């Protein structure tokens, strides 16, 4: 073996070692390459991430207490089924009818959140999402076993335990007290489950999350998917003509990927999601259904978020959604183009926006679009708008935004 060959071998070996310490973990919705970069940055004491991750580590103590991560203990209102294992949340913008003695059925005030939300299971499912996805990332980045152990406990408690495990449906999600017909809108709450599944993927390989645990959770997810695709509510939500339809696809794409069915992810994108893009987007890139809301810019961004999140899942199934333009000219890029000037100057938004728009959301949306579309203009605009650094992984994946 000559010197040159030895050098090549050395380079290859050191490359392999670096890759091994930061192998991709195949999450559901995240850019896995960026997770690797984040881990490397942390290992290398990169100042852009180091203190933030340390403060996430510090605050992760909160996940190790006695607080239950399930919908059975400290239950607020129980679903009409009387089964505490049935998830129930309140539809956000619905309020007691002051004209009625008992306030029933509730009536809608778009854009005004009813504080009663807190009494139901929605708060808990967001806590599940945060806890499991954060612990999963901490396990991956720090390789600390305790994070995987705790994440696995929480996953079992929420999904698999025979006493506290959530039934695999959302029949009573975004429930409206007193309403006599059923709706599909509550399935939107299922996004939190997909993000929790990211955490389950991140602890795969740990001794605390066994093959049997994974199989049991996959089984749960399969049944939830059956419910989504066959129940009356699921079929209603499938037909939703606004962001709900997009998020419906996001949830079933994420869940299909979790049960190792990427070809079904592909099928959803090609037979459903692309059609929604055509049906929901105007030629100028706007989403008229979202413009009609009292929080028009927020909901426009929410629809774009759905496409972004779907595009990450689709990429793992071999589809590049950012390169897709429909026959009639609709595309994600066009959606960004429409929103772009208002992210820079939200005060010029010509539609309703009854609460202030969070500028950081626009900054992040532009930054990711800039990377995906290789448009420096968007990246520069994102930096100009600025993103107040926060110790959370969603932001930290794009820690280069503030370079």
């Amino acid at each position: 073996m000559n010197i040159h060959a030895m050098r090549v071998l050395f380079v290859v070996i050191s490359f392999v070692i670096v890759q091994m310490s930061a192998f991709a973990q195949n999450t559901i919705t995240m850019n896995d390459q960026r997770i690797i970069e984040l881990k490397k940055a942390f290992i290398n004491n990169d100042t852009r991430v180091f203190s933030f991750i340390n403060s996430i580590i510090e605050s992760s103590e909160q996940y190790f207490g006695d607080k239950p991560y399930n919908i059975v203990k400290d239950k607020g209102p129980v679903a009409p089924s009387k089964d505490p294992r049935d998830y129930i949340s309140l539809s956000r913008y619905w309020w007691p009818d002051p004209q009625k003695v008992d306030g029933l059925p509730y009536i809608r005030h778009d854009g005004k959140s009813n504080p009663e939300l807190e009494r139901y299971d929605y708060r808990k499912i967001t806590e599940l999402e945060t806890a499991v996805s954060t612990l999963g990332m901490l396990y991956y980045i720090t390789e600390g076993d305790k994070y995987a152990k705790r994440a696995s406990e929480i996953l079992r408690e929420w999904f698999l335990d025979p006493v506290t495990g959530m039934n695999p449906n959302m029949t009573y999600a975004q429930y409206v007290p007193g309403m006599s017909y059923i709706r599909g809108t509550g399935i939107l709450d299922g996004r939190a489950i997909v993000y929790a599944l990211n955490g389950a993927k991140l602890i795969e390989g740990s001794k605390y999350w066994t093959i049997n645990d994974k199989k049991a959770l996959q089984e749960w997810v399969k049944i939830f998917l059956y419910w989504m695709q066959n129940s009356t509510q699921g079929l209603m939500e499938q037909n939703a003509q606004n962001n709900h339809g997009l998020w419906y696809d996001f949830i079933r794409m994420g869940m299909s990927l979790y049960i190792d069915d990427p070809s079904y992810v592909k099928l959803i994108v090609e037979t459903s999601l692309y059609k929604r893009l055509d049906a929901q987007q105007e030629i100028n890139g706007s989403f008229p259904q979202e413009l009609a809301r009292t929080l028009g810019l927020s909901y426009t961004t929410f629809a774009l978020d759905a496409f972004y999140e779907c595009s990450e899942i689709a990429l793992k199934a071999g589809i590049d959604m950012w390169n897709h333009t429909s026959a009639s000219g609709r595309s994600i890029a066009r959606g960004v183009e429409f929103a772009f000037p208002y992210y820079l100057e939200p005060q010029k938004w010509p539609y309703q926006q009854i609460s202030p728009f969070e500028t950081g959301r626009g900054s992040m949306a532009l930054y990711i679009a800039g990377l995906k579309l290789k448009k420096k203009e968007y990246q520069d605009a994102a930096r100009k708008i600025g993103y107040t650094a926060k110790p959370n992984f969603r932001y930290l994946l794009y820690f280069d935004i503030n370079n």
Partner: protein
Amino acid sequence: MKQNKIFWAFLFSALLLSSCTKNKEIISILYDDELLKSAKQAIEAKDSSIMPAYAQLKNYTDSVCINMEPLSVVTDKKRLAPSKDPRDYITLSPYWWPDTLVEGGVPYIRRDGERNPEVYEYPERANSTIFAEAVQSLAVMYYLSNDEKYAKKAAEMLRVWFLDPITGMNPNMTYSQTVPGMIEIRGTGIIDARRIAGALNAAKIIEGSDSWTDENKAELKDWANSFRYWLEHSVNGLKEAEAQNNHGMWYEVTHEAVVMYGGDYEYLRKIILEKQLPRIDLQMQPDGSLPRELERTLGLHYSTFALEALNLSDIMAGKIGLNLWEYKAKNGRSMLLGLEYLKPFWMSSDKWPHMQINPFNKERGALLLYCAGKRTNNKEYIELSNSIGYYPDINEKENTNSIPRVNSILYYKIN
């Protein structure tokens, strides 16, 4: 070396045996396939001992089932489940009545043996019984005659009941045998799921037909797997699995049928051996009686009913190479012991020393004796069964999982 050879010979024969059971074609879920085959041969040979029974089944399916409007949980629905979803199966627990001392009458209170007419406000129970009978009759006629029209109708009825997006039953029985106002969740309503097992039995029988497509099959399999998940994980299911009487046994029969329809034969074996058999050890007394059934007002009926559940488990077990009639627990309990206990009372039910406030149909005993006789090669049981005979009342369907017209064909040799 010699030991090695024995080991390999053993391994080889074990593999051969397991591949035999695997390759054996399964025709149905709830019937003894050998009986189905021999009935078919007898009909093809125009054997006079089966032709009247065949004519009866054919007449019934041709005149009633073929023209039947497909039923569903939505059909004639008057009361919705608390979910407000018409696709949720809901029935009322029959012996519960409004509490007259409470405004609104809820929670209902129990008056044993008195059937509340309000149960008829919930047509799912009757409709599921009619549906299960029709679809199995059609499927058996399809098997016996090879006439596609029967499979076509059965397939249509199965699609409407299970797969249709408007009428298809949700894969759970959360609201079966509901008690208005009751806070506690019960599992008892799962006993109604015997009809679901029967419908899956029909779907299995028509599997080869063009009218039941691969897509239909895959969709019903998904339904069955969802229902299985509910049986295994819901509060209702977990409670019913723990029931210490015939309910526990019937829970397992449904569970087994659903698992078998899903094609998970390995798990089927596991639940037969690890879940159903221990119930015999646990529920039976040394004399073969089932004390939890003896305390009922219909003691002979419920004792027989429990054994009928075990017999169905044996029929499924037989398809994967197990024989439950030959099983004997360490503590000596067995299905045969249970059969021996009941045998004299099937012969003369007036000697039954416990309660039986309605007449008992002793032909149910004839079927069990016949099955036990076949499975344990016991001629005495077969002869006893012949002496009782099987001339069923075609209206007797409420309490068993079997359909008299179909049984008359399967068990035509009894007479």
